[in-house]
């Protein structure tokens, strides 16, 4: 069974710092989604990466997909308190006519003002 490992599990930083979180798998991803979840709310889709080596930017967030499509990273520049949340990577795993999402273990980010 393919597992998605995320690191670090917890990260507490000061406003204005940069950070990188990682998502790794033992197998090749078909595609990978990054979500952000706030307490008591549903995951909110940030980005989908599909092609090995792909880089996508969303304002201060930069997402990279590894060349071998077995890992991905999320880099946040000049973090702000509003970036606080649980960052989840997820892979769509095909089964039947639909693709269920398999989620990673998550990185809990706290940005202190």
């Amino acid at each position: 069974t393919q597992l998605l490992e995320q690191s670090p599990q917890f990260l507490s930083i000061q406003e204005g710092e940069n950070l990188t979180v990682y998502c790794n798998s033992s197998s090749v991803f078909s595609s990978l989604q990054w979500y952000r979840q706030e307490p008591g709310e549903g995951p909110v889709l940030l980005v989908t990466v599909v092609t090995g080596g792909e880089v996508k930017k969303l304002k201060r967030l930069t997402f990279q997909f590894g060349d071998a499509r077995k890992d991905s990273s999320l880099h946040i520049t000049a973090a702000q308190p509003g970036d606080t949340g649980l960052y989840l990577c997820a892979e769509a795993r095909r089964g039947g006519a639909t693709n269920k999402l398999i989620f990673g273990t998550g990185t809990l980010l706290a940005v202190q003002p």
Partner: protein
Amino acid sequence: EPEVTQTPSHQVTQMGQEVILRCVPISNHLYFYWYRQILGQKVEFLVSFYNNEISEKSEIFDDQFSVERPDGSNFTLKIRSTKLEDSAMYFCASRGGRYNEQFFGPGTRLTVL
């Protein structure tokens, strides 16, 4: 921007009672999902639904669970006889968009006493 909605936001029930959780997926999506997240744990897949039938279900989705799309807009999850361990956040998702991404609702917090 279209979004997935869920009702109620919080449901408290007694063990052994039936509950129905409701979702309105994004209107032009065809694939629907239920996930759950026990407090402090990963988001886990329960069931996927397409063309008015279950496409895939997890081991968690036993005979106590059922899903239905009673009309053109609602998608429901029924738990026939709730157990204490069913207490969790339940998320509905629907799939569509350029990369067939899944979009999540805000969730229903189910508390079984």
